[in-house]
């Protein structure tokens, strides 16, 4: 029959009346994970691979993340791409602090995760000394596919997280 073309388990808007029943958490997380606006902290070579993942071949726009605004106020995902030197470290922290909740961080590349191959006097050995990192991407630099996988992993993490309910519990 024409109405139930999707079968017994499908969503049939004539029957359901354009109403979806779900938890607030799931809805809010779905919205958040599909429109992550990155703040590209493009410091060094990884920034070039980040730009490549935003360009036509790898197309981060598929994930809703092509809006790479360089303003921390307008973004919710900070991708630290490149070596964080001690001189730059506190500036990065300041930018992280300026981002509004909810915010996530991807440490892209070996230098942002652990300092990479630069074990020297001038390099912060990993941005996780200053900023809570959600996903670490290995590679020097990681291929754009790896960056996209990191984004997908982050999306899974957001989907499983407690979005709104937690704050209500805290209020109560």
């Amino acid at each position: 029959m024409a109405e139930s073309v999707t079968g017994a388990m499908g969503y049939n808007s004539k029957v359901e009346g354009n109403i979806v029943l779900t938890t607030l958490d799931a809805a809010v997380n779905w919205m958040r994970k599909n429109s992550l606006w990155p703040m590209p902290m493009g410091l060094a070579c990884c920034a070039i691979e980040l730009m490549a993942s935003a360009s036509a071949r790898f197309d981060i726009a598929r994930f809703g993340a092509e809006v790479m605004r360089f303003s921390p106020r307008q973004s919710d995902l900070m991708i630290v791409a490149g070596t964080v030197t001690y001189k730059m470290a506190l500036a990065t922290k300041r930018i992280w602090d300026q981002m509004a909740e909810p915010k996530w961080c991807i440490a892209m590349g070996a230098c942002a995760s652990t300092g990479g191959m630069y074990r020297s006097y001038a390099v912060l050995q990993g941005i996780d000394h200053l900023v809570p990192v959600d996903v670490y991407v290995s590679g020097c630099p990681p291929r754009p596919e790896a960056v996209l996988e990191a984004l997908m992993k982050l999306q899974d993490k957001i989907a499983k997280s407690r979005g709104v309910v937690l704050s209500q519990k805290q209020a109560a």
Partner: protein
Amino acid sequence: MEFGDTLTRTAEMAPQLDVGEKLVLNIGPSHPSTHGVLRLVLELDGEVITKADCDIGYLHRGDEKIAENMTWNQFVPYTDRLDYLAPLANNVAYTCAVEKLMGYELPPRARVTRVICCELARISAHLLGLGAFAMDVGAMTMFLYTFTEREKIYNLIELLTGARFTTSFTRVGGQTRDLPPGFLEGVKEFSEQFVGRLDEFGKMLNRNRIFVDRTKDVGVISAETALDFGLTGPNLRGSGHGYDVRKSFPYLGYETYDFEVPVGQAGDCYDRFAVRMEEMRQSVKILLQAVAKMPEGAWMVEDPKNVLPPKDKVLTKMEELIHQFLVVTQGPDAPPGEIYFGAENPKGELGFYLNSRGGGVPHRLKIRAPSFCNLGILNTLLPGHTVSDVPAILGSIDFVMGECDR
């Protein structure tokens, strides 16, 4: 009645007005128009910059100190990350410098391969530089077009070296592996279609009203000032001075290739852009010549004690295994002495000053970074321009902080 533009009117009114305090504007290390982490502290009088101070060092990673603790071959990956838009060119420049120190003469096949690497890197770096420059000035499409072309180059580089980007391809005495089958045909195919693409990019920007207005007569550098500050590469050639290391101090057999060096006239942003566009055409010319004349034969220098032996012998014969072990752990044994070697990188003259006291580790390795010298001119160049000229000037100087700060 005649009214001049806003700038002239302000200038005329200024003596009558109380000018007031100047504004100090910090274009901080994280900013979309500073290509990488560069901090500019500008003192503004309205829109006009009166003083500029360039603060670098936000990507200083300690490369030169690390070099004093690495063997000559172990340092090659660090050279990738200097000018990270053209890693192959840096690899080639560094290993040519060490080979000059060791007194090696490369076999012809290695020389032609390195020329192909350098020119592919030059095209790749100029494409990104122009894409970022156009994006800063307002033409977003150019960025996406150039990135598509760069992906084609990445495919070739991945076929050759195994990595898209940070290649670490060359070693002292040659390179890691021989040319894979299909590489030369790929380079030829790419070169042939690239000239058509360059024409398209030219159509988009060369006579684009907005682009020309934003870049003509902006950031004018005279040839003497440029040379005084040590500018090299397209920045110097845009000002009218024809110095190109490939022509003045040829290396890797560049004197046997037929190519021209484009030289600008006015020294403004537009001329530097035009020089880079034309350089890409000349690079294509060199690539086609190199592919046509690729000789057969050895691709590494023959020196068992200091040069890595071919991998198939290492895995099957005892002597080569021992040599491989010695070269990897102790490094090629360089003679004591000091040399300077400069190569024509896309950004300018990348030079290495090597001071060796013998052994596998340098006593002092100095990287003469073209972007470091190119940025030195900003403090003198920016005053007199408006704030909106800053992205155009920075984009046209086309520097890379990885190289500048090392």
